[in-house]
């Protein structure tokens, strides 16, 4: 054993935070907006992929969790068994 995986150091192209640029308000009732920040399994997409800033990611994750309670968006999507 002792395989060493070479880590590729790729600088991700910095995307601007969509909420900062467009000045969208994050609302937990807006399920169309929130579902854009979910993976196809229903998980929250990480910041490094969406480019959301820390502040808005925090607000977003709170909104997603609230929307899940209200059954607007799923906790898990049940497929790919």
């Amino acid at each position: 054993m002792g395989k060493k995986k070479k880590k590729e150091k790729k600088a991700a192209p910095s995307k601007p935070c969509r909420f900062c640029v467009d000045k969208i308000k994050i609302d937990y009732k807006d399920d169309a907006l929130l579902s854009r920040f979910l993976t196809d399994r229903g998980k929250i997409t990480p910041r490094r992929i969406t480019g959301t800033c820390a502040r808005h990611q925090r607000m977003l994750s709170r909104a997603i969790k609230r929307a899940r309670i209200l059954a607007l968006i799923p906790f898990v999507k049940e497929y790919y068994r």
Partner: protein
Amino acid sequence: MKNYECVYILAPTLDDNGLKEKSEKFNEIVTSRSGTINSLDAWGKRKLAYPIKKFYEGFYFVMRFSGNNEILNELNRVFRFDDAVLRHMIVIDENPVPEKSE
């Protein structure tokens, strides 16, 4: 007095009268305890993202009100004991409706 936003989901088995009755009942809880209803928004029947109490649909209501802590306790209590309420959530209203200053 704080502004709150309350979302509740009613069972899809209720008819129009039943829905009206329920929403009026909840409104009265707020108004009878010196609170004010700022808006009541009925979304109508919506599909749930996952089944709740073996229902796949529900009637959504969004109520914005201002009031004191007493209302929250009473609303939470009533919601919990009401079988027609599938889900409820009360949060602080982050974008309150601008109120007319007196």
